[in-house]
């Protein structure tokens, strides 16, 4: 039996530093151990909690590993067809301009089948928040190549590594949408270290605050891990992410207050 290091005496409300927000339900998430989807869910829920807007948010999660997001967020939610979340969110926001609407989309969803919907919702400047979880792979369907898969990276549909000559180049859709006049805030974040989590949360907060001000699209990419798809244990996956994903998808703000951030 392990030794007991509990300090029950300090477990008082005044001493509480951190606990799971109530905007997440108590359901255990179906994500694989260490998957960044969980962390990102938590941040979104915390922002909703802290802004006090639980009753005014409508979330849209399309197909992808996060298709069951509605089991975890304690808010009104819609499940959308693969790739169509920005259109669904447009429909919601147009009839409820005063509610907060966000989409939560994977890279396959947002940057492959949903390219048209993504570009056009951004171009129209729909006043919504788009959360874009880029794990470089189709997690849900078993690790197929995504538009964001890195050159040479093996997946179940590029078993010998992505051959860009045959399969095309990885798509930096975040840089593309930043070029559109309808986006107001475009940023790329990650959530695998405490410092990054804190920054990502600030970005998500800003993305929701912008909705109050009717600024157009706020677009937050989260570069994340897919342990199952990458076939790596979580801690190694994070290392791989830092060494391979981040050089290709560098973190940081791309567009703030409607202006490109100069590099």
């Amino acid at each position, binding site marked *: 039996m392990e030794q007991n290091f509990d300090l029950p005496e300090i477990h008082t409300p005044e001493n509480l530093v951190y606990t799971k927000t109530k905007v997440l339900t108590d359901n255990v998430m179906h994500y694989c151990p260490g998957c960044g989807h969980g962390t990102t869910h938590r941040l979104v829920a915390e922002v909703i909690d802290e802004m006090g807007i639980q009753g005014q948010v409508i979330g849209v999660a399309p197909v992808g590993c996060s*298709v069951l997001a509605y089991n975890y967020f304690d808010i009104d*939610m*819609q499940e959308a067809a693969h790739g*169509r979340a920005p*259109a669904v969110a*447009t429909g919601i926001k*147009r009839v*409820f301009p005063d509610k907060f609407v966000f989409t939560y989309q994977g890279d396959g969803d947002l940057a492959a089948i949903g390219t048209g919907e993504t570009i056009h919702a951004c171009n129209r400047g729909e006043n919504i928040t788009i959360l874009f979880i880029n794990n470089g792979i189709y997690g849900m369907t078993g690790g197929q190549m995504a538009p964001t898969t890195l050159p040479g990276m093996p997946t179940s549909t590029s078993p010998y590594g992505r051959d860009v000559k045959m399969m095309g180049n990885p798509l930096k859709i975040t840089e593309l949408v930043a070029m559109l006049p309808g986006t107001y805030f475009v940023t790329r974040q990650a959530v695998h270290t405490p410092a990054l989590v804190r920054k990502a949360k600030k970005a998500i907060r800003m993305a929701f605050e912008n909705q109050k001000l009717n600024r157009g699209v706020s677009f937050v990419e989260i570069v994340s891990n897919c342990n199952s798809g990458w076939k790596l244990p979580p801690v190694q996956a994070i290392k791989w992410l830092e060494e391979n994903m981040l050089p290709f998808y560098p973190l940081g703000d791309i567009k703030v207050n409607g202006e490109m951030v100069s590099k």
Partner: protein
Amino acid sequence: MKELRLMKGNEAIAEAAIRAGADAYFGYPITPQSEVIEYLMAEKPHERTGMVVLQAESEVAAINMVYGAAACGKRVMTSSSSPGISLKQEGLSYIAGAELPCLILNVVRGGPGLGTIQPSQSDYFQATKGGGHGDYRLLVLAPASVQEMYDFVKLAFDLAFKYRNPVMILSDGVIGQMMEKVEIGEQYARLTNEQIDELYPWATTGKKTGQDRRIITSLELDPGRQEKHNLKLQAKYKKMQEEEVRYESLNCEDAEYLLVAFGSSARICQKAMDLGRAQGLKIGLLRPITLYPFPSEVLNDLASKVKGILTVEMNAGQMVEDVRLAVCGKVKVEHYGRFGGMIPSPTEVLQALEQKIIGG
């Protein structure tokens, strides 16, 4: 007296939508129905009633905008013509699966493929049997006049909300493009958000404190529960069959020969019937107004009385299957069709009846 106007069918749909208190229209242009969005845009419904009208980037986007807004308990519609409706099949299946009310107008043109822009009824199967995947049904209304184009909009919204089911108005280039007299009805107010909260507790309007969150989805990974959901849908369709069958019967009381036709074909058959009656032929006309649920019972009854049935369709023979299923071998059922944008004339319908049924 109500206001009378001369309008195109497509315009009547648009005006009716504003008057029915529709909250939103999302669509993409395609001939022969672009007048719907054009009329709406010209009318500035955002000023008249606050209705939202948005030209989407594609039909796929449009139907998914409908999904999002319908899930909010709003009265939402889209319109297109055949190729565009094909693109909407996935979305329609989702909407049916998630049990969302909405209105879809298909002003049918000749197919397959790009085909022709001329009128057709060749999307009957797609509309009534489910062009998308899975066991679902649309409730399908087939207007035969511009007035019905107008009237069926409110009816469609009412049925859509009664059943939480998408309703399709299956029209065609004739009804969409022709002008006829329309009696314009009253302006119904759009529902307020409070009314929506009260009437549609399933709608995602933002979680209310102390109440459960609302989830709109068509996903159920557990097959047992998915089957339950399917059974619920089937029960709903059965209820539609019991309560919503609509048809018009003309001269069926003494008819020896029965024409069955919907939409603009029914108009042509009416003239053919008149021509035939003038020649002493006892012809009746049964016009299904709801294509799903189909008026099978009345047809089965009529089948016992008449000597033969001819369906007239602007397609290669689609509704004829539902007529045969209804009639169940009791009497001969034949099909006469023109297609690819060709429209049968009353005289040729009469000839077909004589050849295939009376003589045959």
